[in-house]
């Protein structure tokens, strides 16, 4: 597949991509959960990007969402290419597993676990290690408790959202 074929897209889908990126940015400003565990809703945006636009444009959309939200809100990580990369890999993984496939529970579990391990625990910890000079193990210990709880909640939300969205898609 050439680069040109890989990036082929209709204007309508391109505009919709812009909207879904905006939805991702808006959702990441909201959190749900109890006082103990707070979970940002940004991951729903990643799921949407991967599920609707596939790995390639999903990854592009993820990258753009990081850049635009940095431009608007100055993200916690500052302007650091690593976090942009993380934002791209999430939708890429969701896209590889969920794009143009029927919504199945095992797919959601697999995708969420892969994103949690590769992106949230692996890459993001690595960036913190690089960027702030934190000891890798200590940075990991700090992140493990949240990442042990969050994925299960994310799976449930992803399931309900994708089921609802597949209904919307069929209707069009």
């Amino acid at each position, binding site marked *: 597949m*050439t*680069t040109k074929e890989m*990036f082929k*897209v209709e*204007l*309508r889908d*391109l*505009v*919709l*991509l*812009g*909207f*879904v*990126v*905006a*939805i991702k*940015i*808006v*959702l990441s*400003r*909201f959190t*749900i*959960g109890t006082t103990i565990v707070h979970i940002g*809703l940004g991951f*729903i945006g990643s799921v949407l990007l991967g599920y609707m636009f596939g790995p390639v444009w999903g990854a*592009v*959309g993820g990258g*753009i*969402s990081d*850049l*635009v939200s*940095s*431009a*608007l*809100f*100055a*993200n*916690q990580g*500052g*302007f*650091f*290419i690593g976090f942009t990369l993380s934002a791209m890999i999430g939708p890429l993984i969701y896209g590889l597993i969920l794009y143009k496939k029927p919504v199945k529970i095992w797919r959601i579990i697999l995708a969420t676990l892969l994103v949690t391990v590769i992106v949230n625990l692996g890459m993001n910890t690595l960036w913190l290690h*690089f*960027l*702030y*000079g*934190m*000891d890798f193990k*200590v*940075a990991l*210990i*700090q992140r493990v408790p949240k990442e042990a709880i969050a994925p299960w*909640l994310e799976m*449930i*939300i992803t399931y*309900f*959202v994708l089921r*609802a*969205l597949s209904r*919307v898609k069929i209707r069009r």
Partner: protein
Amino acid sequence: MSKILIGRYIAGDSLVYRMDPRGKLLATIGFILLIFLANNPVTYAIVTLFSFVGVAATKLKPKVFWDGVKPMIWLILFTSLLQLFFTVGGKIYWQWSIFALSSYGITNSIFIFIRFTVIILASTVMTVTTMPLEIADAIEWLLIPLKLFRVPVDKIALVMSIALRFVPTLFDETVKIMNAQRSRGADFNNGGLIQRAKAITPLLVPLFISSLETAIDLSTAMESRGYRGDEGRTKFRVLKWSKYDLVNLGYFVVLTALLLIFRTH
């Protein structure tokens, strides 16, 4: 709530405001990368000094920058504390099972504290003194080299400007939908985990459908205004380099030189 959606730009007039957003973006990214070079007290002092010079050059009130650090303060302190007690090396002053207070741990946690603060300050200078639209233009300019790999940079720029334009709109839309659902009994903040997960659907589906409709409308409007793909178009908003950008460049060169001289090799 509407305060955060406009972005963090604060109107002002100083040297930093007159600099080209491309130069500022490059300087911010470069500054964050240069921090990697800092590895001893002297270099950390230089980095801190230069970031404060940058902050002072904006001529904005310190509160603006405090607001940038404030949401992160607990994370910064918590991280520094973890580093303080978990990294061991050098002289040990105090120890209790796995916790230890060592000379290495103390310097390390101070360094991490400085890095956090300085990175947040640099990003804050960038976002506070540059309008989001200008930052987007600067990012687009930075992506141009990707054309070598046949990446459709113009398409990416289009998606970026649409996203930027519609974040505030969709934010309002989200709040409206939430209120509409609440007024008929939806509860977004109570119930068990599954209950809360389910509560997202009545928020997301209307948001998604309205986006789908606006996207169709917008693409029709764009095509009827003669949009036939992204290539071969002119630019209305053009960025221009000026003499102020030399100040930016000079600042950056001096910082790089100082860090290279004073770091422990």
